[in-house]
C-alpha cells in the first residue's frame, strides 16, 4: 500500500510533495511504466516449476555479470588506474555468453515445454524431445546468437573410460504414421566422466523459427556409445525431465534490436 515513487528521507523532510497515490493514479502510473518496458500488460507467469529453475538462474548470472561490468565502469571512472577486471562467479554463463551479452539489447531464455517423455517409435525410443514457445519474442528483434543448453552429469561405473556421442537434431517434419523427419545440427564426442553444461549453437534454427513459426517443431537428442549402441540419454548422465530443477535443459537467445520501438500514444 505504499507509494512507489519517493524522494530520499532528507528531501522528504525539506519538501512536502510526497503523497500517496490514489488507486487510479497508481494504475495509470503502472500502465505508463509497463509501456516504457515495452509491455502491453503485466505478465502473469505460471511459476509452478519454481523461480529457481536453470533458465532463471542462468539469466540471473547474466544480469549479475552486467551489473558487475557497470560497477567496474563506475570504479574506473573514479580511479582510472584501477583495474576493471574482477573475479566473477558465474555458475552457468560462459565467457562466450558474456561476449554475446555485451552486444545484445535483449536476452531471452525459453523453458522446455515437454514435461513428460512421449512414447516414440522403437527406432527412436532413446530419443528425447524438446519444445520451446517463441511466440512472445517482440517484433523487430533480430537473433544474434542462440544456444540449446543441456547439463551432463558424470556417469560412474557403466561407461567409465568410454566416450559417448551426443547428437542434436532439428525436427523438420512430422507425420502421424511415421517417425519425425530430423536434421542433424551437431554431433559431439564426450567422455562419460565429463560433467557440466553443454552448449549447442542453434542460431540459424532459431532465426528460421522466428521467421516461420510453423517450422518450430522442436529439437531431439540421441546418445550412442563408442560401439554405436543407442542408449537412453539419462544413462549417459544427460539431465532432462525429472532431473534437478537447476540442471534442466533450456534454450537462450541473444537479440539485437532491428528497429526503433515507438511507444503508442495514449
Amino acid at each position: 500500500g505504499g507509494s512507489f515513487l519517493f524522494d530520499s528521507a532528507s528531501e522528504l523532510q525539506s519538501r512536502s510533495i510526497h503523497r500517496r497515490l490514489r488507486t487510479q493514479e497508481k494504475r495509470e502510473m503502472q500502465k505508463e511504466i509497463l509501456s516504457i518496458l515495452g509491455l502491453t500488460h503485466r505478465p502473469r507467469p505460471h511459476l509452478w516449476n519454481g523461480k529457481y529453475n536453470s533458465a532463471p538462474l542462468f539469466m540471473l548470472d547474466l544480469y549479475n555479470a552486467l551489473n558487475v561490468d557497470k560497477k567496474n565502469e563506475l570504479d574506473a571512472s573514479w580511479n582510472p588506474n584501477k583495474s576493471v577486471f574482477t573475479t566473477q562467479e558465474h555458475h552457468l554463463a560462459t565467457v562466450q555468453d558474456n561476449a554475446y551479452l555485451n552486444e545484445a539489447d535483449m536476452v531471452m531464455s525459453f523453458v522446455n515445454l515437454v514435461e513428460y517423455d512421449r512414447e516414440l517409435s522403437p527406432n527412436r525410443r532413446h530419443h528425447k524431445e524438446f519444445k520451446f514457445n517463441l511466440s512472445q519474442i517482440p517484433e523487430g528483434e533480430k537473433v544474434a546468437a542462440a544456444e540449446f543448453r543441456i547439463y551432463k552429469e558424470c556417469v560412474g561405473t557403466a561407461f567409465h573410460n568410454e566416450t559417448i556421442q551426443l547428437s542434436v537434431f532439428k525436427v523438420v517434419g512430422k507425420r502421424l504414421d511415421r517417425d519425425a523427419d530430423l536434421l542433424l545440427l551437431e554431433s559431439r564426442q564426450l567422455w562419460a566422466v565429463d560433467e557440466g553444461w553443454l552448449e549447442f549453437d542453434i542460431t540459424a534454427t532459431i532465426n528460421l523459427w522466428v521467421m516461420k513459426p510453423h517450422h518450430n517443431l522442436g529439437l531431439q537428442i540421441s546418445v550412442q556409445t563408442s560401439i554405436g549402441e543407442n542408449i537412453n540419454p539419462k544413462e549417459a548422465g544427460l539431465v532432462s525431465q525429472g532431473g534437478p530443477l537447476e540442471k534442466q535443459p533450456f534454450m537462450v537467445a541473444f537479440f539485437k534490436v532491428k528497429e526503433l520501438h515507438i511507444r503508442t500514444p495514449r
Partner: protein
Amino acid sequence: SVGKPRQQSRNRSTYPQEAQKGPGQTVDHNSSDQKTACRKHELYVSFRDLGWQDWIIAPEGYAANYCDGECSFPLNAHMNATNHAIVQTLVHLMNPENVPKPCCAPTKLHAISVLYFDDNSNVILKKYKNMVVRACGCH
C-alpha cells in the same frame, strides 16, 4: 536578438528583482543560490512497491533521479551548462520578460537492465536506455 515575447510557464525564469536589474548591475550570488542551483536529486522507483515481485526478478527498483534547480548567472562548469545556455542566461538578464532562463535537465542518462518473466515463464533480460539520470546541467 529577441523576438516576440514567449509564452512561458514551465521555466521558473522571471523574477521581479532581476527584471529591474540591468546586465551591468551586480547580482548577489551568495551561498543561498547554491541551494537552489540546478543539481541531481534522488528519486527511487520501486518495483516492489508496485507489487511486481512475482514477475520482475531483478532489480527490486532503481534510482532514476531527476534534475531540479535554478540556472542562474553565472553558469559555471560544474553545472554542465551548454554554451548556448550561458548565452541564454546573459540574454535573460537583459530581457527577463522575453527570454527565459535555460532549463535544468539531464546531461548524462544511463541504462538499466531488467530481468523478468513473461506469461510463458520464459525469462527476459532487457536493457533500457536513458532510464537513470547520472548528471544534470543547464540547457
